[in-house]
């Protein structure tokens, strides 16, 4: 008689550990050739489109009709390493060692052009309208040297932001409010002690309030100190559904000073007036600026701005235009990672092997996110230097970014791709149909971004709202330029400025993904497969 021996697996019986589940999902992922190809395509699209953008974006200036095109000049760099605008009229004397300067400002007026530009180099202010810009500024300044971009600290009155103390381009502290006038003058004082400059303001010259303390590292023992005036470019951006158009031009600010008081080692010589200005600054010609001095009263006229540069394009974000192509590819893979199982009936085997369905989805999400993050990390880390290299070769100046910002963009973009793929996985689980799920996710992420950054499709308010609440908010991680309240600028998504902070925007996408995952787990548990 034959005895049938029942089959026993060689494997030991044990609980389905999460590690086994992860391994099973990883095996599924890496053995589907189409998904590996898809990941490679995503990487190639990100790198390739970045290279395409870099290779076809030229920047050049021609000084004359027949002269060769030169590379666009880079703005000067401030003490913090950022690009700055440093253009103003400076009435100065050298201040040796410690000391202080005090002044009374009795008026700040201005001129601007409603038609944009200026009349002629001989008479630049002809036909201009009286009016002061909100951030027109005049006051006293202590600066390392007359070279653009060097360290400084200044106390100033402004067009409509009251008294401010500003230093090293990015720092801005508010003092007394209200405008300076003959009836209500503003007293300003700067005191140097070593590397430390302290700013004070006063409404009467008797009662002084400390506004701020600036530490200017490496300020030379003899600094340049004195009066200044500057007025940033006037700009009106009219936005409509037909597109946006910008109009504006340089402006002039004129301030009246008296009661100039000096303490410390100052020369007895006269004051020197000088326009600090670069060849491509948005400022009136030197002939429009200047100063007069009569019996202790000074009038200083200046044009330009002392501020961080905010009108440069976000080069890093531009090199990453291919992120969208990569994103579409990884969302397709993310959705297919689950819908393929439904289509082939594999999902029944999966859930028989591992009846706790939520854990299966978690394992899938982890495997998918890890693979996508790695692919995204490599792609962005290659694309940014490649794109910048090509852009630089085409004459585009490359703005300096800190290592932290660079890391934020690279890791943020990789994380953005990973979470988008997981969102695809979750929506794929919910809908079980690949076409619908892919469309839903891509439309939720890419379309709001597209509508927000393309000027002229939607009103500005709707644009801002779209990149706040939709998953497209996560593209804020690609923003490498900063928003400065002390600079008037069209801070819109189209110009590269997102309303949310980088990681706050990313959190919006994560919230959407978490919501979809929770809902997917809930349905997975209730539904038949």
């Amino acid at each position, binding site marked *: 008689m034959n005895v049938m021996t029942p089959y026993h697996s060689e494997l030991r019986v044990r609980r389905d550990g999460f590690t086994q589940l992860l391994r099973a999902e990883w095996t599924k992922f890496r053995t589907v050739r189409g998904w590996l190809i898809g990941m490679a395509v995503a990487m190639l699209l990100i790198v390739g489109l970045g290279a395409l953008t870099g290779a076809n974006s030229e920047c050049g200036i021609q000084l004359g009709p027949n002269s060769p095109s030169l590379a666009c000049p880079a703005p000067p760099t401030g003490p913090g390493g950022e690009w700055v605008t440093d253009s103003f009229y400076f009435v100065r004397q050298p201040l040796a060692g410690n000391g202080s300067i005090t002044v009374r400002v009795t008026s700040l007026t201005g001129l601007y052009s409603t038609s944009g530009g200026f009349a002629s180099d001989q008479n630049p202010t002809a036909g201009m309208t009286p009016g002061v810009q909100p951030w027109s500024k005049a006051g006293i300044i202590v600066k390392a040297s007359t070279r653009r971009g060097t360290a400084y600290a200044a106390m100033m009155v402004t067009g409509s932001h009251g008294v401010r103390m500003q230093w090293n381009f990015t720092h801005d502290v508010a003092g007394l409010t209200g405008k300076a006038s003959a009836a209500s003058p503003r007293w300003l004082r700067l005191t140097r002690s070593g590397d430390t400059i302290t700013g004070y303001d006063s409404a009467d010259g008797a009662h002084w309030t400390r506004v701020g303390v600036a530490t200017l590292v490496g300020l030379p023992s003899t600094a340049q100190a004195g009066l200044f005036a500057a007025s940033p470019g006037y700009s009106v951006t009219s936005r*409509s*559904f037909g597109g946006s158009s910008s109009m504006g031009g340089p402006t002039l600010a004129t301030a009246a000073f008296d009661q100039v008081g000096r303490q410390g080692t100052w020369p007895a010589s006269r004051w020197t007036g000088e326009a600090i200005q670069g060849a491509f600054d948005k400022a009136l010609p030197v002939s429009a600026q200047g100063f007069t001095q009569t019996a202790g009263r000074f009038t200083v006229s200046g044009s330009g701005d002392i501020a961080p540069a905010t009108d440069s394009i976000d080069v890093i974000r531009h090199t990453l235009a291919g992120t969208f192509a990569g994103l*579409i590819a990884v969302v397709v893979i993310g959705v297919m990672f689950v819908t393929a199982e439904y289509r082939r009936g594999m999902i029944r085997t999966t859930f028989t092997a591992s009846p706790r369905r939520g854990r299966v989805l978690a394992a899938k999400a982890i495997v998918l996110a890890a693979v996508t993050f790695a692919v995204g990390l490599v792609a962005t880390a290659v694309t940014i230097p490649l794109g910048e290299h090509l852009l630089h070769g085409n004459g585009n100046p490359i703005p300096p970014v800190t290592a932290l910002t660079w890391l934020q963009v690279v890791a943020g973009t990789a994380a953005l791709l990973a979470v988008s793929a997981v969102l695809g996985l979750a929506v794929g689980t919910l809908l079980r*149909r*690949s076409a619908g799920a*892919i*469309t839903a996710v891509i439309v939720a992420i890419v379309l709001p971004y597209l509508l927000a950054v393309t000027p002229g499709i*939607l009103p500005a308010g709707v644009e801002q709202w779209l990149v706040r609440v939709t998953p497209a908010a996560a593209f804020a991680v690609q923003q490498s330029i900063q928003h400065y309240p002390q600079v008037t600028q069209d801070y819109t998504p189209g110009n590269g400025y997102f309303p949310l902070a980088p990681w706050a925007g990313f959190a919006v996408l994560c919230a959407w993904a978490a919501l979809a995952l929770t809902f997917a787990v809930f349905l997975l548990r209730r539904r038949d497969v």
Partner: protein
Amino acid sequence: MTAVHAEWTKLRTLPGTGWLLLAAAALTAAVSAIAANSVSCPAGGCQLDPAKVSLTGIYLGQAVVAIVAVTVISGEYSTGMIRLTLAATPRRWRVLAAKAAVVSAVTLATGAVAVLASVLAGGLLLGRHGITAAHGYEALSLGNGPVLRAAAGSVLYLALIALFSVGVAAVVRDSAVAIGVVLALLFLFPILSSVITSPGWHRHLEQLSPMTAGLYIQATTNLRSLPLTPWQGLGVLAAWAAGAMLAGALLLRFRDA
């Protein structure tokens, strides 16, 4: 004709079709109405194109239309139904033509409803915000030539998107990949043209983009600033659709199903 009838029966009896078409119309009208309602313009002071604003929803509606169109082809591949279909109609181009005819017919009908609702809502809401003919804007009525062109053109735009999607689906067969390719081709051109600064390339990308060029048909004001005329723009999308259909037909003819 039998092939068309067969395709119509298949499409009609799929559970999702009706809901998707309803969603396409509803989303188009809803987004259009939201866009029209969010216009804020101080006393006629801004240049805007009322027809374009009131048809903003097409951006979203086209995606839903693409789902329907892609599923008509790739749904058959995923279930194996395609083998039965091709056995019943061995002249394969007829199958594709019948599918294209049915999909464009339902899209035209859906699109007409969606566009009509959008224009009506737009007229009502924009009028409430002072965007009326009395303030010097284009009158938002279908009796006005350019507005009629924008409205009818938007319906045609949706039908061309459907044909384009059918063609792409016939080429790649898998629904996930097909919808990914369609959406990538629609959305990537405008994103790339927004970052490429060379004027020549920027213009060429806009002229080549199926979505950007195709939607020039919605423009009623400031036509001179466009790189193509409205009908030329729609022609670009038609060329994309024709190319995709041709590639799909050839592959269907010479490839095993």
